[in-house]
């Protein structure tokens, strides 16, 4: 257990934006809400998953909907609490903790709003390990946890309980309800036991988000380049060290809306050691594929993030513009996100890249990972016999 302060949330906002891989929504409003809630109600505890009792009840809390609506119709503040209480009543028992469903972007902050108002701890872990656009894109779903009963709540006191046979239908119906609520709502889904959380969650992602933010903030004082600091910040986690993929200048951005998502690509012209090369980053809100001089060098589910080359702050898909100096970094996904069942949900084919097989960063950049090392559990990538 550790106490989370307002400054931790400032750091988390920076780190979560990087884990948002170009999407996830701007953490700013979520952060201010969480800070205001903590100021009014008291501090929030961040709990290590090992501290969870197997029989505990964990109720994840999140927001869903259009970012354009959230920045205008700012939340009322108790939506997630109402969703949580409605879920508790439906299940006939009280929650012991909450957690994020998505550690990238604004959803990193929402559980702290709910936690402050209900005096529950936040468990250090989530179900996406980054940002993804849809509700079934959760390790919870991949490893058999039911997404429902789920509750969607608006600012006026409406709460809608949803029960479905599968989690794809949960996404479909919840999204429809959200639109009727004005385009934005708070959500509780994937109610689970402590044992199920320990079995299925991507662990340590909240504290990792804070650590990444601290790396960006403290880099110049430490005499380290912020990009290197970000890459080092994930080294001692289940992810492993980040890798700078490309440094360049944005020379083209193509962006259009398709079924509510911002789809397109950005082209970077290489600078420094990458002079003479080109990088294409394809996205659908979040960055999906990076191609250097025509060859794929990174793909979903591995994290591809575009950072300001000087300050290492995240550049979201909406903010991409000609002339920006950005550095693309890759962060390898933890093993739990790379199983066959997981790749069926969020591998390249799930985003329309039918012919692209997922190749982990550790394999694509074998020399880099041989020299920096990999977390325990990933040794097979370094073995030339078994690495793909």
């Amino acid at each position, binding site marked *: 257990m550790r106490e989370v302060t307002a400054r931790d949330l400032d750091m988390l906002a920076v780190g979560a934006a990087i884990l948002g891989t170009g999407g996830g929504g701007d953490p700013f*409003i979520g952060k201010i809400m969480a800070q205001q809630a903590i100021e009014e109600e008291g501090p929030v505890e961040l709990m290590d998953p090992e501290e969870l009792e197997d029989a505990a009840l964990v109720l994840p809390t999140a927001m869903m*909907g259009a*970012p*354009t609506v959230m920045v*205008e119709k700012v939340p*009322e503040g108790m939506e997630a609490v109402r969703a949580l209480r409605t879920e508790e009543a439906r299940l006939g028992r009280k929650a012991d903790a909450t957690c994020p469903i998505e550690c990238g972007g604004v959803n990193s902050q929402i559980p702290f709003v709910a936690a402050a108002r209900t005096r529950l701890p936040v468990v250090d872990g989530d179900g996406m390990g980054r940002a993804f656009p849809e509700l079934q894109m959760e390790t919870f779903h991949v490893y058999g946890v039911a997404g429902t009963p789920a509750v969607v709540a608006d*600012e006026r006191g409406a709460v809608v309980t949803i029960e479905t046979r599968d989690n794809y239908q949960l996404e479909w119906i919840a999204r429809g309800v959200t639109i009727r609520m004005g*385009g934005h709502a708070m959500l509780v889904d994937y109610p689970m036991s402590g044992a199920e959380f320990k079995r299925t969650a991507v662990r340590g992602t909240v504290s990792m988000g804070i650590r990444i933010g601290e790396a960006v903030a403290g880099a110049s004082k430490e005499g380290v380049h912020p990009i290197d600091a970000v890459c080092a910040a994930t080294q001692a986690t289940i992810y492993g060290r980040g890798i700078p993929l490309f440094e360049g200048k944005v020379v083209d951005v193509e962006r259009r809306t398709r079924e*509510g998502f911002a789809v397109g690509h950005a082209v970077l012209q290489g600078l420094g050691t990458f002079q003479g090369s080109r990088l294409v980053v394809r996205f659908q809100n979040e960055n999906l594929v990076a191609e250097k001089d025509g060859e794929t060098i990174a793909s979903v589910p591995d994290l591809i993030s575009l950072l300001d080359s000087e300050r290492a702050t995240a550049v979201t898909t909406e903010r991409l513009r000609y002339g920006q100096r950005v550095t693309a970094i890759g962060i390898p996904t933890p093993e739990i996100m790379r199983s066959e069942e997981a790749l069926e949900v969020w591998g390249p084919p799930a985003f329309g890249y039918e012919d692209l097989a997922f190749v982990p960063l550790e394999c694509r950049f074998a020399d880099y990972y041989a020299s920096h090392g990999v977390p325990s559990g990933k040794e097979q990538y370094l073995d030339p016999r078994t690495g793909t």
Partner: protein
Amino acid sequence: MRLGIDVGGTNTDAVLLDEVDRLRAKGKTPDTDDVMSGIERVVSDVIRDAGIDPGEITHAMLGTTQVTNAIIERRGLTRVGIIRLGAPATRAIKPLAAWPEDLRSGVEGPASILPGGVEYDGRPISEFDEAQVRAAVKEMDGGVEAFAVSSVFSPVRDDDERRTAGIIAEEVGKDVPVSISSEIGSIGLLERENATVLNAAVTPVARRVVGAFQEALGRLGIEAQLFLSQNDGTLMALDYALRYPILTIACGPTNSIRGAAFLSGMDDAIVVDVGGTSTDVGVLGSGFPRESAVAVEIGGVQTNFRMPDLFSIGLGGGSIVHPDGSEGAVRVGPDSVGYAITREALCFGGATLTMTDVAVARGMAEIGDPGRVDAARETVEAAYERSAAMFEEAVDRMKTSAEEVPVIAVGGGSILLPERMPGVSRVHKPEHFEVANAVGAAIAQVSGTVDRVFSLQDRSREEAMEEARRTAFEEAIRAGADEDSLEIVDIEEVPLAYLPGNAVRIKVKAAGRLENY
């Protein structure tokens, strides 16, 4: 005859343009604390130099940083009563939540979050409650000197804001300034609310500036129509300026870009304004500065103003050249001797190697005494190369494509700019570059802007565009534009992601000549 005046950070400049846009006189004098004396002095200088009668001046335009400075320096601001409509929504973040404490404590009055506001398609969030609004206003009356009203999605429908403004006028009288958010900013409640509160807070500063302007010109016997420059490069009549003083923010850089356009005769270029300490790079497109795409911060507060997109670097005429390691490498700036240059620079007998000295040593400018610049040839060349690289990168950042673009150099330090730069088709250094700001003020048009979200459920895109265009024209006429000269100068259409029913955000700007010119 038009009189353009710019009250900047250091100097007050003025220019006189005649009816065929010929520059008849220009002047520059250091700023004065009371603002008025400086204006009076420089204007009387240009009247004398041009040999005209003050009565010949028909229009006078003032661009000033006074409002910006007041916010940054936390001076002269007033306490604001804040009303936000949209309850129960928005309660999770109080008004002024992320403001720096020192600014907030001087400005923040009582705040109420009350029912009202609309969803993205214009349906009410909750019913507007006149009794609650009236009660809140009565509470605030006497304790605040201005009001700021914001409501959710007011760029879509602002009825509730207007009703509230009406109630305030009834309760506290029409002399108390009321700012409503739909007239100040666009989508983004918190940024728009911040901008609206700032607008209300600077009312006394606006009154002082307008008063000084009127008095200075009155004392000189000038009976012209008076205007203030706003941040989009167009003009506002004084009564409009008293209601929307926040729109004068950043008019300096905007006027410099517009002045550069006029002096060079170009409508599309990158503008490089080199000062004593820093250089601002902006983009001129269709005769107007390109607007910033990201939220603009003023004095530590996030706003969503229409501000020029600028990239600034710490390089100017007074920038100090430092040896950097071995083999003749150098670092240029960001430290600068600023306006102490006539004391500190080598060419003026001082002891500091500045970029002005580098220019003098290379024969790029004739300033002071070249014989006094005894710096090593390698150092001078290295400094020039470094500064050229900094300029090139800054220009490159602001380009919108890889094609070559022209550059217009303005500002006193523009002597530093290379004659040729990669990615640049030509570097123009127009005559009168040192008073580009005042010129920009003098040549400004009058505009009207619309920035709203339209739902295309009940109407076609063409109908929405037509309504936007008509509203923009009406706004421009209201500000003083000649109806026959009106043109649409900018249209932007942004489909809103995630929302069904084809909600689209349309921004239209119309501009025209001043009426009676």
